[in-house]
């Protein structure tokens, strides 16, 4: 051992002194904790059924112009991810295979005074209606139309682009599933148009316009049991975990007791880790979007969702792709956006999910210029029974 390798041991006091030096200073006062305190107070009030003032939601809104860009930021590389990150949405689900059930014509006529009332009513209905099983040898066809907002702060253009995602689930759950996804080409321009987008990208890329297809990929995958690769699920905006892509066994094993189901969702790492996202409501939406939930699980899920602290009726009659239901939403802890699910209490059907920007943040490339009240993502789902895999059923 060389002399250089001989190091004097610290004393316990020296170690404690160094640890104390690394310890943060006391916060300056209650103001530092005000946001946390407000979030807690709101959550408690909501839990106790007391009203909390909240801004109204609104459909896609006009842009009022954009701020100056942030110089020196490598934004384009992450443009696709950015667009996805800000995606917030609406999923509309109809049970096409169950045409005998009530339809969207039976829109909610009564006002639901509480989340619990709305969801429990839906749960009661779901218990009656149930899901339609896939007939032997047939396929459950699920078509999801998703609208994603594309935005950056240095180009005078922003649009919501539509993507169609289709899955064919065999009657044997463990069999081969098929997933197809592609942009439809439909765009809703919030600011600018194709020309301003092209000109802006060329200016930023030294005369070379960016090919947006890179950020709006297409694809087709087959997978046993619906276990599609993570990349495919990311493209279509679904989680590839046990909530977004549950196995048949998982669906069978999930608790039918609402409290147990709620506790399981609340304990999920994605909820603990990412409380700024939709939390338990996000997980519930992931499950509901699969279109594979047995009726008893769906009922339990509604009753579990009713237990989410801070969940409130955000819109009595929300219209998504022509279907109406009551919107139930939460504002995650930092209050930057609202996540909602839309449920038709008259039928018990899960109509969709929706996310709405609540705060303007011009410091972020993905949110710069987006006004509060902007719905930044939407998708709709139609389900039906298909005779053949890869073939769209008539009427879809």
């Amino acid at each position, binding site marked *: 051992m060389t002399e250089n390798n001989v190091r004097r041991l610290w004393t316990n006091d020296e170690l404690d002194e160094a640890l104390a*030096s690394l310890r943060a200073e006391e916060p300056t006062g209650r103001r530092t*904790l005000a946001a*946390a305190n407000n979030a807690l107070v709101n959550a*408690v009030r909501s839990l106790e059924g007391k009203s909390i003032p909240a801004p109204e939601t609104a459909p896609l809104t006009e842009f009022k112009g954009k701020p100056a860009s942030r110089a020196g930021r490598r934004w384009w590389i992450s443009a696709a991810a950015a667009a996805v990150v800000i995606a917030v949405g609406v999923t509309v689900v109809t049970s096409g295979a169950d045409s005998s059930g009530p339809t969207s014509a039976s829109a909610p006529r009564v006002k639901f005074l509480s989340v619990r009332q709305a969801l429990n009513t839906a749960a009661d209905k779901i218990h009656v209606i149930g899901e339609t099983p896939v007939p032997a040898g047939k396929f459950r066809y699920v078509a999801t139309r998703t609208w994603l907002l594309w935005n950056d702060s240095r180009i005078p253009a922003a649009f919501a682009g539509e993507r169609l995602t289709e899955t064919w689930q065999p009657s044997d759950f463990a069999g081969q599933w098929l997933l197809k996804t592609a942009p439809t080409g439909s765009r809703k321009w919030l600011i600018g148009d194709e020309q301003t987008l092209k000109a802006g990208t060329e200016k930023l890329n030294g005369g070379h316009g960016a090919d947006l297809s890179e950020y709006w990929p297409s694809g087709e995958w087959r997978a046993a049991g619906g276990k599609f690769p993570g990349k495919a699920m990311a493209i279509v905006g679904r989680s590839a975990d046990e909530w977004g892509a549950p196995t048949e066994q998982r669906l069978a094993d999930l608790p039918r007791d609402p409290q147990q189901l709620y506790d399981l969702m609340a304990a999920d790492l994605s909820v603990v*880790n990412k409380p700024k996202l939709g939390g338990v409501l996000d997980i519930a939406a992931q499950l509901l979007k699969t279109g594979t939930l047995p009726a008893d699980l769906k009922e339990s899920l509604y009753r579990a969702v009713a237990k989410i602290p801070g969940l409130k009726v955000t819109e009595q009659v929300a219209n998504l792709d022509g279907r109406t239901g009551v919107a139930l939403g939460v504002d995650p*802890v930092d209050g930057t956006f609202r996540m909602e699910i839309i449920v038709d209490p008259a039928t018990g059907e899960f109509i969709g999910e929706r996310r709405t920007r609540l705060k303007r943040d011009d410091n972020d490339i993905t949110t710069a210029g987006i006004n509060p009240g902007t719905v930044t993502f939407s998708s709709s789902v139609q389900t039906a029974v298909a005779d053949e895999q890869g073939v769209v059923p008539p009427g879809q």
Partner: protein
Amino acid sequence: MTRAERYAAAGAAGGDDRPDLCGPDLQPIFQSLFDRHARDVRRYLASRAGPVAADDLVGETFLIALQRRASYDPARASARAWLFGIATNLLRQHARAEIRYLRMTARDHGTPVAHGHADRVADQVDAQVRVRELAAALAGLAPGDRDVLLLSSWGELDASEIGAVLGIPAGTVRSRLHRVRRLLRARATPKAPPSLEGERDDD
């Protein structure tokens, strides 16, 4: 043991920070909990992940506490220890941010004094070097070791409380704490802190 019996046992044990979090009126219960512990929890979080992250995480800690109030067992731990446990679990999910913060501290902490009595200057420089070395060493610790050490040093929890919130025996906490302190006293940085450049923030 019923809930009432657990409270009675907790009270008999002398714990006065063991509220019934499932009482009928949540507002005063949780406001009291927040008023009593939020500053300490935030300071602990700020020490480990930096002040910006701490402002978010302290809110998340109390929201999770609200959601999971039924799981709080006053016979096992004080409310303070339980909250530190929640905060520590949250930090586990933000381990990248914590390690990055510690490495930044290791790089930036302290500016050597340029004047004053020579011995005092030397002592201060030694102390600053120690702090930087410690920050680097903390970043290289196994997460479980770091939790035990910092719950003890910054959270000011005793071994039984740490064991309760981490779900490990108090004896294991003591032996782990002894081992980690011995390691740090020898300034044994498990691995050299790499450059910050090129790191991605996945949090």
